[in-house]
């Protein structure tokens, strides 16, 4: 049996190419998820400027930085997007059909407590206030996101109009589009992982969150 080449997998991830073998082959889907993850990570770093300039900021503020890169995210002053280096997103090797069947139960999935604590530590957040954050799956499990540290980040409920509730509304909308066959799963995963606010603006055709999404409740807060 011949498996998909990386070139064929890239075509499939772009919504082109023959997917008959891919859909039925766990090995090819795993490789596809690896390539999609690597591309997502590169995209996030590229769009974020590879941290150019960050190093200088960090050096000046070195006394405030606890270990390595953690803390920079807080110093950056924008906490509505994750740190691309810490949270590039990670997916499970699932087909569109599998994601849509599994979505209902995945909606209830919550990051394990130990993993949530590690997320806060990586982001330099000590003693997080209860109900102030959602330990959010950057790519939600309902969209094939994996339960990995690289897919989790502390998303605040306040501090910006781009809150965890607004992202939840986007996730819900994207899953519907994926399951209606109007959006490729890989595209949805990539868009939400690289710039979820940009994706929201694009899909809802607005510069600011819609009023009805400000109170959208899907995931539970960290307590």
């Amino acid at each position, binding site marked *: 049996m011949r498996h998909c080449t990386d070139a064929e997998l890239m*075509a499939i991830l772009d919504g082109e190419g023959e997917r008959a073998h891919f859909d039925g082959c766990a090995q090819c889907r795993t490789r596809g998820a690896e390539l999609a993850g690597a591309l997502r990570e590169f995209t996030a770093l590229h769009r974020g400027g590879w941290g150019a300039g960050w190093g200088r900021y960090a050096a000046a503020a070195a006394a405030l930085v606890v270990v390595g*890169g953690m803390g920079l995210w807080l110093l950056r002053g924008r906490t509505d997007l994750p740190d691309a280096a810490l949270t590039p997103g990670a997916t499970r090797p699932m087909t569109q059909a599998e994601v849509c069947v599994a979505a209902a139960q995945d909606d209830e999935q919550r990051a394990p407590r130990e993993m949530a604590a590690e997320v806060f530590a990586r982001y330099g957040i000590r003693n997080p206030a209860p109900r102030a954050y959602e330990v959010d799956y950057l790519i939600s499990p309902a969209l094939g996101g994996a339960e990995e540290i690289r897919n989790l980040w502390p998303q605040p409920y306040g501090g910006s109009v781009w809150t965890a509730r607004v992202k939840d509304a986007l996730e819900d909308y994207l899953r519907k589009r994926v399951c209606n066959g109007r959006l490729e799963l890989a595209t949805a995963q990539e868009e939400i992982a690289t710039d979820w606010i940009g994706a929201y603006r694009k899909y809802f055709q607005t510069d600011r969150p819609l009023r009805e999404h400000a109170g959208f409740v899907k995931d539970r807060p960290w307590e």
Partner: protein
Amino acid sequence: MYGQWRGPLLRYLGALGLPGADAEDVAQEVFLALCHHLRREGGRENLRGWVFRVGHNLALRRREQRGRTVEEVEVADPAPGPEELALLSCRRERLQAVVAALPERDRWCLLLRAEGLRHREIAEVVEISLGAVAAALGRAVGKLAAVEGR
């Protein structure tokens, strides 16, 4: 269109090796050309691909005129200090090194894909076949995935 595509275009031009002022000039030229194109009632299909194609060609021409190579300016932070070196993750540096070592055409395809262009749009910008785009991205992303730690 200007607001939506200017940022991604500038980022792409920078990654091709144009210094900031040159990238700004080229972007301005591209959007001026886009105005003329639309006034002449030119095709409105895939305007994003059009913008990147014109920008790509102008950037290569300007780079030739200046006699620079991509390698001279590709790495975003060429001389980080010791504190920065300590803070920048090894993984990030390894990824940068992989990208810098890619054949130029593979790197163009990867950068355009990172700007959200579909394979068909990339094929138009770089003027290669759809299969060649997939092959270039397969090689480039395969190398990124092979970086230790993934």
